[in-house]
């Protein structure tokens, strides 16, 4: 479904601030995979998502999604088939508009026409969908009046409405309180199962990454240092993962030192 070949991203190339954020990443995501991505701050998880969704152009490498080369496609074109949810709950919805207007914008992807699609039949349908997140009576309320958790749940609902082929979840519960985070996570799990979504999810919670999905990827300093799936993944524990991370990190450091002395 998604194929990354030696994808590299360098920020501020040629300046003193030059930073290698993604270092020749190769990744193959199969249809139906649910991939959890862990890694410390600055390891390149979010940058990888920004590259896949097209927020930044890649410095080098190739990306193929669903059989088509998307390396130089603009972000809005990729968004037709790749859904994305941000950590910031305000990014997925327009606060100045009502819930129903937000939903009508999300219902079909792409440029809109001069039709007025919002009618009572649609409202009925939206009310049914919104009952999943307890907002069925607030169709006309401005989204700005909702709590962060409610907004994130609505964003999730709006994302699945348009049936994306793949979803990118960028720590989408990190800004919420534990109870709301649980609600949004349950909903995520439910939608992934119900619509058989292919998903990639960034998380800081290692236990969660072990329990959720069928594949786990660990990133450090812009590279994928560990990629495990299926049965091997289900046997993982947090301790094992932390130990592995330490071992691998030492090894990569050693490698770097080796390269430096050689040069």
């Amino acid at each position, binding site marked *: 479904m998604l194929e990354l070949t030696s994808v590299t991203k360098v920020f501020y190339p040629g300046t003193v601030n030059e930073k290698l954020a993604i270092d020749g990443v190769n990744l193959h995501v199969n249809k139906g995979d649910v991939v959890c991505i862990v890694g410390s701050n600055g390891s390149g998880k979010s940058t990888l998502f920004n590259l896949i969704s097209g927020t930044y152009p890649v410095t080098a490498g190739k990306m193929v999604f669903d059989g088509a080369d998307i390396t130089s496609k*603009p972000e809005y074109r990729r968004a037709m088939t790749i859904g994305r949810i941000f950590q910031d709950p305000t990014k997925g919805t327009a606060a100045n508009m009502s819930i129903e207007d937000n939903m009508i914008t999300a219902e079909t992807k792409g440029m809109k026409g001069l039709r007025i699609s919002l009618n009572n039949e649609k409202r009925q349908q939206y009310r049914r969908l919104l009952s999943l997140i307890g907002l069925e009576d607030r169709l006309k309320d401005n989204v700005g009046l909702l709590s962060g958790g409610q907004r994130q749940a609505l964003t999730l609902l709006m994302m699945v409405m348009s049936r994306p082929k793949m979803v990118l979840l960028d720590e989408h519960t990190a800004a919420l309180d534990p109870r709301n985070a649980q609600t949004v996570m349950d909903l995520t799990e439910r939608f992934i199962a119900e619509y058989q979504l292919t998903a990639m999810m960034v998380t800081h919670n290692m236990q969660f990454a072990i329990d959720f999905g069928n594949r786990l990827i660990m990133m450090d300093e812009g590279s994928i240092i560990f990629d495990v799936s299926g049965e091997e993944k289900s046997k993982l524990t947090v301790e094992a993962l932390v130990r592995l991370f330490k071992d691998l990190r030492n090894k990569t450091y050693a490698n770097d030192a080796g390269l430096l002395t050689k040069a």
Partner: protein
Amino acid sequence: MIEGIFVDGLVFSIMVIGILISYRILNFADLTCDGSVATGAAIATMAIVNGFPITAALLFAFLGGVGAGMVTAAIHNKLKIPGLLAGILTMTMLYSINLRILGNKANVPLLRVSTLYTKLPLFFGFMAPEWASLVGTLLVVLFVKIIVDVFFRTDLGVSMGAMGGNEQMVISQGINPEVLKLMGIGLSNGLIALSGGLLAQYQGFADANLGQGMVVQGLAAIMVGEFLFSSNRISLLTLRAILGAIIYKALMFFGRKYGYLVNITPNDFKLLTGILVIASLFIAQTRSAASSAGAKRKAIARSEGRRTAKEEVPHA
């Protein structure tokens, strides 16, 4: 006299609706207005002087404004510079273009030709000429208002509103925000130019300097309107813009008429309009602070009420 204020306000209100679209709905600080209103006046005047029918003249004015707005949006989109700077660039360039349209004259009168305001009294022959002008202008304004109201309820219009609130959201829905800006700023300036075309006919001449300070006047009208009532519905937003425009023009009228009593001359109007905008912003800020303080008080009262209610349960 009173009809004059209303006609003046209604002509102005079409421009205010245009500014409402760019500033409030698209959240795009567009200064093209100062140029495009004069462009509209120039195009309509030259079309009428050259024998085109009035509707065609107004249509040309509208299209000229759409073009000007699209230039601003294109500069902003392609060169990635702020909308404010893009607008200033277009506005400055339009000044020269407007002089060209007017045949290298700063001022072209509409004398001895029939304009909307010479035809309206003939059309509505049964009423006084001033009232005929008022009714005719009101019909034009209502027509524009209804079209704008319907447009912003269509899927395309709703997505424009969404872009004004959150550009990332629109991108995530697979919509190119550059195209939305091109259309939205085009529509906004089209209406502004249409207003300019009516204004030229109402005052009987087109002037290359007509647009000076128009943006600030339009903003003042929007802000005055926002004090009337608060709403999120497009039909009420446009109504508020129209009422704000009329109130603003009335204020200016009384300033001209009685201002001499406190030694105010028309030369002071730009200063006063600016102060009006600042005062409106200040009052709006104080009001929103007060309302959020009120909401906080209410929330505290509610939670305390709940606590006392809980405490009372055992007694009951």
